[in-house]
């Protein structure tokens, strides 16, 4: 697999005061692949995302996007550089409709003109099964729809790299199958995806590779079936003693 590297993290660390939550994590994401991230609660997965998206500053190490090092670029600039993300706890713009939520992302992050955004956003809504709620106030959406909105909004900003933080939680089997299909299609369109997920079967259905974090350290990385089978992973993540 020697495709071009889109995202590269080298020795990334993060501490909050004296508490170290990430310790020298390094990994690479190739263009067009889906990297799954697993790890116990509090392993530092979301924190890693926050540093890639610019919501948090790194305490050490480097992050490169498509060859350029990310330094102090604020989140909005990183979005324009092609990093789209969802939040684990949805953050809708509750005073706007679902459609308008997407327009923000398309018009700013995606850099489209407002008119160009219309058809595009309508399509994204359809893809994310939000079409019938296009004109509904985002504040009145159910939790599931809010999660869908997170995804739709991230897509609307036309990302090269999409960071998904637990978007399958709380879905029925049926719904998560649809979601997997959607993620596949997004990948097929050439979007590189990093997906944090606890709903393993969903993740396993799309991920090309898996990375496992535990207590801020990378403990495994590789082909999904192999990673899942590693005793260490089984122990710390799934609670199965070897």
């Amino acid at each position, binding site marked *: 697999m020697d495709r071009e590297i889109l995202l590269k993290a080298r020795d990334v660390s993060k501490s*909050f005061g004296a*508490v170290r939550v990430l310790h020298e994590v390094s990994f690479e994401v190739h263009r067009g692949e889906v990297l799954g991230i*697993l*790890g*116990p*609660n*509090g*392993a530092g*997965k*979301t924190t890693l995302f926050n540093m890639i998206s610019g919501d948090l500053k790194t305490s050490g190490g480097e992050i490169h996007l498509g060859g350029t090092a990310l330094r102090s670029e604020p989140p909005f600039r990183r979005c324009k550089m092609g990093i789209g993300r969802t939040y*684990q*706890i949805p953050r809708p713009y509750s005073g706007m409709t679902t459609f308008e939520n997407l327009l923000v992302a398309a018009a700013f992050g995606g850099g489209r003109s407002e008119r160009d955004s219309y058809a595009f956003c309508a399509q994204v809504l359809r893809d994310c099964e939000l079409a019938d709620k296009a004109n509904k106030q985002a504040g009145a959406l*159910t*939790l*599931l*729809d809010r999660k869908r909105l997170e995804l739709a909004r991230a897509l609307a900003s036309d990302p090269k790299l999409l960071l998904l933080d*637990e978007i399958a*939680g*709380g*879905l*029925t*089997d*049926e*719904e998560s199958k649809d979601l997997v299909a959607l993620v596949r299609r997004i990948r097929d369109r050439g979007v590189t995806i990093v997906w944090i997920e*606890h709903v*393993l079967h969903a993740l396993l259905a799309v991920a090309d590779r898996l990375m496992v974090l535990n207590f801020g350290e990378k403990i495994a990385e590789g082909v999904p079936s192999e990673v899942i089978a590693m005793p260490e992973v089984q122990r*710390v*993540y*799934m*609670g199965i003693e070897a």
Partner: protein
Amino acid sequence: MSAVLSTHGLVARYGDFQALYGVDTELHAGEAVALIGANGAGKSTFLRAIMGLLPVAREMVRLDGEPVGGTPTDRMVRKGIAIVPEGRRLFSGMSVEDNLRVAIDQAARMGAKGGWTLQRLHQLFPILAEKARTPVQSLSGGQQQMVAIGRALLCQPRVLLCDEISLGLAPKVIREIYAALPEIRAAGTAMIVVEQDVGLAKSASDRLYCMLEGRVTLTGNSAEVTREQIGEAYFGAGHAVV
């Protein structure tokens, strides 16, 4: 054997929108009942209505045969019902310990007795002991879920309502939590568990109810209902793929 908690034609609405259309359920002492249903079926609404978080008529909810519908939430807690709410709802700005202590305080004030102590909770979720002084908002998503469960347990409930407690948890933790459920029930606590994972729901409960668009469409012993029955109840008989 009479029911600890029962609902009778429970109706609830959000403004003009009716979310529940006459739901009849009952829960017996020490019993675990699973509540499943697609997103937006009204499961959370059902729990909220019981807790007095939505206006309902007095006769619609009975506790030990006594009508309690619409009783203010805090008094419902005093009567022995606790909830792990959707979305965790922790007290941000307060430490983990203070979050839990609030529940201990109130239980002590009400003279509620039960087997739950901080020590026992720390055995269940060791990370909470470690993070005792950390403000809850800087916990990881899963850690927050643990605090929410702990907080409800420390209310020493006779009836525990759990709204998707596995959401966002690593498999290991889910396993541990569901492993703890029998222990909770052993103390005589009855439970209603809202769960998306049908397999998990079935295995953790004695009986189950399935909801669709604000109505109960299936009920039966968890061990007996079949996947087909559930599938039908989930999406309605007239369900067609458009």
